[in-house]
């Protein structure tokens, strides 16, 4: 038995989520009464299930990732040098969100989107994931609970050997809720705690080993991670929000920081 020829396209549309509400309802209702279409829909769902199974995708080999990460880094390095004189960077005026002079962000966001869902420094990544989970489990999220950067910033003085930047982002939808000290990569590091709709974002800050403009996000055990370096510091943001929100957070943080400096 076959379905109604004139409804085939609609059935595919239904599977692909391309129909508006009215059409979805009418196609679904039709499939309930028309055996042919019901059968066809079942078939399509099976095929859809088989094909959209995540593991039939091919994944880029490591060597390729490394090669591309390398030339991306080279290509974006000169741009980051230009960041100190944003007015002379011609591309900046064209894209409003890089107006902060972050020419490097062009290449970086390209990398952010595609280049490396895998970090080179897996050990640190694991520690950050573990620390994030611990901070949520043990309700030891903050050592000092404050939404005021001028309270938090001095609190870190004397507790660590560098001054981490602290900015308030409540107006961008990421309220600051406090800070704490944590232990990553064999040293005590400051953590800024933000929220995004009730989700917690932990921002780890430490001196950067070597400057790298590449920013990356990935999903790791269900968490999104973003890493970037700025002004000799390395930032790791982790949360269970979706990667887009984390990108938004990175952008908001970086821009606000530029403005305050």
């Amino acid at each position, binding site marked *: 038995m076959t379905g109604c020829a004139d409804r*085939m*396209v609609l059935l*595919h*549309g239904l599977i*692909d989520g*391309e129909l508006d509400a009215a059409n979805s309802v009418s196609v679904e209702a039709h499939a309930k009464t028309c055996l042919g279409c019901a059968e066809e829909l079942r*078939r*399509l769902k*099976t*095929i*859809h299930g*088989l*094909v*959209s*199974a995540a*593991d*039939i*995708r*091919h*994944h*880029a*080999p490591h*060597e*390729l*990732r490394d*090669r*591309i990460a390398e*030339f*991306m880094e080279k*290509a974006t390095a000169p741009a980051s040098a230009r960041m100190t004189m944003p007015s002379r960077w011609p*591309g900046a005026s*064209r*894209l409003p*969100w890089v107006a902060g002079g972050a020419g490097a962000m*062009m*290449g970086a*966001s*390209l990398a952010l*989107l*595609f*280049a*490396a*869902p895998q970090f080179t420094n897996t050990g640190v990544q694991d520690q950050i994931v573990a620390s994030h989970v611990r901070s949520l489990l043990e309700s030891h999220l903050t050592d000092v609970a404050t939404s005021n950067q001028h309270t938090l910033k001095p609190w870190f003085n004397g507790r660590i050997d560098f001054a981490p930047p602290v900015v308030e982002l409540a107006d961008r939808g990421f309220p600051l809720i406090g800070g704490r000290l944590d232990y990553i990569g064999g040293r005590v590091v400051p953590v800024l705690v933000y929220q995004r709709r009730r989700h917690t974002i932990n921002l780890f800050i430490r001196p950067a080993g070597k400057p790298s403009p590449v920013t990356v996000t990935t999903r790791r055990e269900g968490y999104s991670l973003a890493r970037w370096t700025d002004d000799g510091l390395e930032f790791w943001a982790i949360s269970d929000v979706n990667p887009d929100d984390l990108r938004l957070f990175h952008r908001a943080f970086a821009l606000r920081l530029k403005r305050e400096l």
Partner: protein
Amino acid sequence: MDAAYNLARYLSRDPIAAEDVVQEAFLRALRAFRTYRGEAAKPWLLAIVRNCFHDWGKANRDRRGISEEEEDGRYGAPGRPIDDIHLDHDTPEVILLRRREVEMVRTTLENLPEPFREALVLRELEDLSYKEIALLTEVPIGTVMSRLARARQMLGEMLLPRVESGRKAQP
């Protein structure tokens, strides 16, 4: 990057060529970043990958003077008829069955003619909308829909009997 590689791999059906295509695509993307107008980044990059693939295909055919059919033969798998795919019904492990299914779906997908394969990969594996696929492949949206329908039909004809018999064979 997985999206770029995945598309290149399914288009070229050759792991080495796919790497070259992706690398070239990233180089071009980097150069072309100034023309990027803030539209969705994934279709933008995949369009570059697609162009690179076509250039690669052209260059390759010109240089070696071989047709696509001959090329298929060289790399083995794509030209292989579906009946050759070995299904081991005896294994009790579902996980193994699952792996075979994956291989089977991959190979079947690779056997679809290019426009259908492309549409299906973009839709099912990369989750692009009809509109994005239409823009990317430079065809009307109606063509995208009919290609998808045809692709699924072909895939279904080749796959479903296999999958069902494979599953039934499990104790």
